[in-house]
């Protein structure tokens, strides 16, 4: 207990946003489970995923908030932007409308997160190239114009999924290293060497329990 039960140094909060059906939950599932979830139910409000990654030999726990894409949830999901260190903004390359809504999502992301939040644009379903409705070039240009990182991914094949999550983490870590992200700020979205959760009030009792368990 003295060393802490945690095997990571940082917690980064991510939020995945984007229109309904672009594959946000599938991206998360692919990232955390390395599997493709074929019939993914509509997300209600927000769901969560976690995975511990390593950046610059630092263990980082990614706490990913996968928001509902349905418009009716938007009022609620807007509440969850706060304190996100990274925002993955997803559109579907086979549906132009999801790309067209990006500016709206981007506005939310900009307004509801802190200025240092890393926003990563993901064009999902790149395995369906035949049905492509949004070219890579225009999306790339959009990303450059808005200072976003960009990748086309496929939650189905797993292509670039890992990179999107990891590159975001690297960028956040870089921001921490160069001091542009203040860890002490309440909304940084980053927790460093987290304190034990609420349960710590029992810490005084737990160590003897553990000894008892060690049998």
């Amino acid at each position, binding site marked *: 207990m003295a060393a802490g039960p945690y095997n990571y140094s940082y917690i980064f909060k991510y939020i995945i946003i984007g229109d309904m059906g672009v594959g946000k939950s599938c991206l998360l599932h692919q990232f955390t489970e390395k599997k493709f979830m074929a019939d993914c139910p509509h997300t209600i409000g927000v769901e969560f995923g976690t995975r511990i990654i390593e950046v610059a030999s630092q263990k980082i726990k990614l706490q990913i908030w996968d928001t509902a894409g349905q418009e009716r949830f938007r009022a609620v999901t807007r509440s969850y932007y706060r304190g996100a260190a990274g925002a993955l903004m997803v559109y579907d390359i086979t549906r132009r409308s999801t790309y067209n809504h990006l500016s709206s999502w981007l506005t939310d992301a900009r307004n509801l997160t802190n200025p240092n939040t890393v926003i990563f644009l993901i064009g999902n379903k790149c395995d369906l190239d035949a049905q492509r409705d949004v070219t890579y070039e225009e999306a790339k240009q959009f990303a450059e114009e808005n200072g976003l990182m960009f990748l086309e991914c496929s939650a189905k094949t797993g292509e670039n999924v890992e990179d999107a999550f990891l590159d975001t983490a690297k960028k956040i870590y870089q921001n921490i290293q160069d001091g542009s992200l203040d860890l002490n700020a309440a909304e940084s979205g980053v927790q460093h060497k987290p304190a034990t959760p609420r349960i710590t009030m*029992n810490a005084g009792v737990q160590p003897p329990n553990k000894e008892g368990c060690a049998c």
Partner: protein
Amino acid sequence: MSDSDDNAFASADEGEEKTPPKERAKQAPARKEKKAEKTETGASTGSLKNPKTPSKVETAKGKGKQQQRNKKGKNCGISAVQENSGTKKSETKESQKTEDPVLKGGHPDKGSGDGNREMSGFEEPEKSNSLSQPAELSGASVPKDSDQNQDVGGLSTEKKGAKSLGETAGSKANISSSVKSPEEQTIAASDRDHHTPQQEKVLHKLEESANTGSSGWGWSSWGSSLLSAASTSVQTFTHQVGDGLTTIMDTVESSLGVPDPNTLAEEDKDKDVESLETAKKEDVIDDEKKDKTELLKENQESERAERKSEEETKDTGQDVSPEPTASGGGNSWFASWGVGDLAKKMQDTGKSLAAKGQTLMTEGFDAVEHLAAGGIDVLENIGKKTYNTLAEHDPALRRTRQFLAPRGDKPNLSSSLREARDQAEQQQKQDEANQEALKAHFGTLFDDYQGLAHLEALEILSNQSEKKVHSLLNSLASEDLATIKPQLLNIKNAFELDDSAEDAAEDQDFTSLVRQHLSELELGTAPDKLNTVHQMVQAWIKDFDSNDSNHSQGTKETHEKSIQALAELTAKGVEQFHKAGEMVLLDKDKDKDCTERAHSLARLTGVLCHEIGNLSNKFVACLNKLAEENKSEDVTRMVTNIYLEASNSSTYIQDAFLLLLPVLQHAALEQAILALTSS
């Protein structure tokens, strides 16, 4: 021979290129000397290119002395041709003490017509003496040498030998010329200074041993006395070498054994002569050689008795040789070839001396003198080589000393490696222990099941709603506030949890109750996850109860399972409240009374907390059962832990429920405001 000698010097030059200019300068006159001799002696080239000379040159104190010696060498070369060996003998004896190579170069036997070949023949042993050292050091065996020596005679092998001479000479030059250490130079010089007393000493010793007679010349004792004499000069080296001293001694012994003249002369005389002849490729001196062979034979007869004893001692010396390996066949062969030459040379010496009417003993001493000089050279070269090997990458032998010195308590590699391994193992154990601890750590498990995340999200919603409620209340007119306030208070009252309900210990139909209360909420949320987890836990308990006699799980596993179940159920309960809160906010326009929802949620909370209590009781029962079966185990701590975490779990659920109060008030307010504005 000239070809091979050229080779030898080509390689020697290569070796010399690595030497400091100082030494090169020293060696340069040596080559001059050889050239001069070449012209003077005419036929013989081998003698002029005695590899011995460069090594001697190296050990010379200075250029001046070297030049002096060159002059002497020239003189001797000339005198060797001109003077009779008998008169020359005394002269050379004198000069030998200071100028060994000169003596060798200008040996009296040169005067006997076949002087050229004699000289070369004499020089070859010198060469081989020194040359054999690297070979022997590298594992060439003397016995093998002698065997090969007996086979000598084929021209092809001879040429091969000549070639290997070139190589060996080159390598030798390399070795000796690579001596860079000033200490080495000084030592070598001092070695030379000691020559005279040393040799005298050796002579005396030899005389004594020869007089005793039984073991011939007493090569072994001679060798050891030589060694002791030489050891003063090579003490430094041998001291450094440590364990290698034995090897050196053996090598010295074998080196000394090798140049035994009589054995070789007896057995391989003709072959030697032949091989020498072919090796030198001097057709001109064929006749001379034959004459000499005859003379040798005669001489042999006269020396037979002595030779036999020598042979014995030589054999023992060979037996002592510790490195009978097959490596460096050419070199070792050549070494033996050189031995043959030396033997012949000594025989020649004896012959000429006999012709002069001198005693065999004197002759023997003379030969021994050469051998002594050669032996010291052997030692010197061994020392040099050893020192070079040690000092090559280790200036001043610091590392060698450190290596040979006792370690003391200085940490070494193996101990530090062991330490590192132990540390790693400990770290791993620590990690494993941590992992084990995490398995039964409620907080961590609750987090893993995303309970914390849902609680955090719910908290965000709650805080936002609370702010909204405050702002809405502030914005409302006092009359409207009065109409709405009772509802808000009702909702708040609904959140006053009835503790007495939790005391009920009887089983409840959890699934149906949860479903019932959730449906009362009319939020469209299904308790699927919650029920799935609950069913899983129930199934596990049932399975445990039904397998009374066969509990594969220990108390530890049961405890872990209990905590896991509690954490997961709590997490799903919190998630359920979180979803409810989200839906309440989204469905706030619906005409559903928030007070009713509040009551439904309160009942749901009661059901969840009750279930947590029930499950913890069941888990404790399981643990107690296990404890009864395994009497040795004390489960009190685990039981306490389960009850503790159960209370924690209830706290989380009640916290989540209480977080919904602002959300419901917010919803109620908005509904009321909506109703007010619409009416």
